[in-house]
């Protein structure tokens, strides 16, 4: 099947709010999950006959469960501050990709069924029935939101738009209308242990090959241990790090950091995935079940520290939810959570991000670098949305911005920032987050990447930037795919620990 033909947005010198193009993305629709994929997660196999009734009931259930959802659905005053903040709106011009319009697809049904005014005078208050067309719009446009929360940042009421998208996805799953990419992958995590479906034997073979590569490159025996009980650190990293480029170069970087610092570490074949797509589909049950694999592995291996590799949404899940879900961090109070809290070394942050580990070692002088090894690179940093707006690093506010940058400055001589308003907490999504990194949404992904591409082009033109570092597997895969559409070389994208890997001194 040939790639669909579409016009790639023209990159401008400064951001321009697009002219509205009604229904421009009405044809963009990810594949629907098959019955076996849905049923494996406990969802109805296909769209149920009484979907309207069940969807409204599910919305009612979510309103009871999450007070926040009710507040967000009630609070919007349609001020319009969010309208031009979404990368998908900026890239496509489709008015339904304005965050307020996307939210209103759910809000209008909420008003019809759950507010007195909407029940009595629907037309006066913008309340709408849940028709088949509306359900279709939910499926299309909630699958055109990457849950990046950039719009939320500009909302004067602090409405968490991603939570509305997650609620909509949860309702769609509850009526048997889930999305293939996310649901197939979650099934693989339960069956095999990771998003990729990489079985333990293949993982072991891949790691062995990487050890040979590092030996050939450096002459040093750097290990990538698997399932080694008694290791100090359990590294949880996205399975893409084992499989794809440029991801694998960061995995090599983590291994070199642990080697140079003399830290005994291991990967786990059971918890061979940092990603947790349970968050993308808004399913607390799936979020928990996927996270518990990490706890099982940590208890079995008896590790003292849990470190998370370069994965954006995984870090949000780890930083914000692992504590109560699993006991990694304080808050979980079931027996296994308590056992794990006792087992982990509380002198370290649990969990820690690999960037925190590396940065801490750099500050203590435990790592040495030949920075000129990166002199062929002029580097910029793309903040990943879930790290930037969903978590923190280190001990000070803004650590999630400063720590990756400090690492880059420690290992490379040439660093350039992209334009303010496109980085830090205002960063633009890569265009592939939230469970949208699938081929049939390529047009959306290419167009949604345009605000980031615009900012990148500015620094490429003005400062010769030729490397955009990031700390997210989705960002890496997405940019590898879309950079060529904007006449950039796909090898411009890479990981922070890829830069570390290039410059680090081993066995000195």
């Amino acid at each position, binding site marked *: *099947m*040939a*790639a669909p033909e579409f016009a790639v947005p023209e990159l401008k010198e400064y951001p321009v709010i697009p002219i509205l193009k009604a229904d421009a993305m009405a044809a963009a629709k990810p*594949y629907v999950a098959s019955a076996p994929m849905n049923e494996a997660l406990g969802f109805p196999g296909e769209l149920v006959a009484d979907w309207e009734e069940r969807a409204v009931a599910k919305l009612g259930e979510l309103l009871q469960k999450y007070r926040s959802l009710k507040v967000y659905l009630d609070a919007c005053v349609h001020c319009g501050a969010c309208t031009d903040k979404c990368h998908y709106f900026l890239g496509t011009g489709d008015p339904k990709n304005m965050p307020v319009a996307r939210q209103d697809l759910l809000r209008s049904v909420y008003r019809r069924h759950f507010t007195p005014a909407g029940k009595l005078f629907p037309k006066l208050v913008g309340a709408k029935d849940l028709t088949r067309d509306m359900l279709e719009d939910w499926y299309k446009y909630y699958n055109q939101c990457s849950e990046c929360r950039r719009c939320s940042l500009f909302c004067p009421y602090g409405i968490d738009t991603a939570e509305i998208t997650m609620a909509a996805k949860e309702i769609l799953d509850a009526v048997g209308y889930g999305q*293939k*990419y996310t649901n*197939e*992958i979650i099934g*693989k995590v339960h069956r095999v242990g*990771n*998003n*990729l*479906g*990489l*079985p333990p*034997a*293949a993982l072991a*073979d*891949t790691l062995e*090959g*990487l050890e040979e*590569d590092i030996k050939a490159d450096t002459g040093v025996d750097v290990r990538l241990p698997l399932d080694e009980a008694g290791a100090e650190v359990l590294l949880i990293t*996205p*399975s*893409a790090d*084992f*499989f*794809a*480029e440029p*991801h*694998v170069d960061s995995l090599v970087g983590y291994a070199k950091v642990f080697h140079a610092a003399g830290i005994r570490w291991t990967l786990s074949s059971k918890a061979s995935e940092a*990603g947790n797509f349970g968050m993308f589909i808004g399913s607390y049950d799936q979020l928990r079940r996927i996270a518990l694999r990490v706890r099982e592995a940590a208890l079995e291996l008896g590790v003292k520290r849990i470190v998370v590799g370069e*994965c954006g949404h995984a870090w949000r899940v780890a930083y914000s939810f692992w504590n109560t879900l699993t006991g990694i961090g304080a808050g979980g109070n079931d027996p296994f959570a308590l056992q794990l809290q006792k087992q982990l070394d509380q002198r370290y942050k649990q969990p820690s991000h690999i960037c925190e580990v590396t940065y801490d070692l750099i500050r203590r002088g435990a790592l040495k670098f030949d920075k000129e090894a990166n002199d062929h690179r002029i580097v910029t940093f793309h903040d990943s949305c879930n790290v930037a707006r969903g978590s923190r690093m280190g001990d000070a506010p803004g650590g999630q911005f400063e720590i990756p940058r400090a690492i880059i400055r420690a290992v490379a001589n040439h660093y350039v920032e992209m334009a303010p308003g496109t980085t830090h907490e205002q960063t633009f999504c890569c265009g592939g987050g939230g469970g949208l*990194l699938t*081929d*049939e949404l390529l047009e959306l992904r290419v167009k949604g990447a345009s605000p980031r591409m615009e900012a990148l082009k500015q620094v490429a033109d003005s400062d010769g930037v030729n490397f955009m570092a990031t700390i997210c*597997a*989705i960002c*890496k*895969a997405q940019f590898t*795919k879309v950079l060529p559409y904007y006449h950039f070389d*796909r*090898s411009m994208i890479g990981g922070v620990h890829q830069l570390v890997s290039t410059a680090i001194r081993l066995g000195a």
Partner: protein
Amino acid sequence: MAIEVNGKTYETDEEGYLVNLGDWSEEVANFIARQENVEMTPNHWEVVNFLRDYYNEFQIAPAVRVLTKAIGKKLGPEKGNSQYLYELFPYGPAKQACKIAGLPKPTGCV
């Protein structure tokens, strides 16, 4: 969905990947390659055959690094890189080559 090759019908998923791995044959591979606008040369076959061998052993396609190393050994070190694989399979070596080799699509953040 389905494809028809030499009068026989083979089931595929929405994206054109074979549903039953046992349906694969060189004719089917050539047919899928033509749909993908890929002209199969002996070097393409080296990649496809390696993918299939690896899959038979490990039930998954090889990591890109494993593949580039193997191809470098077979076709020469100058070809042992993902740049060369993209020349052979422009839509991306992992996905497009897997489709032609009759293997499932690699999923996840790849």
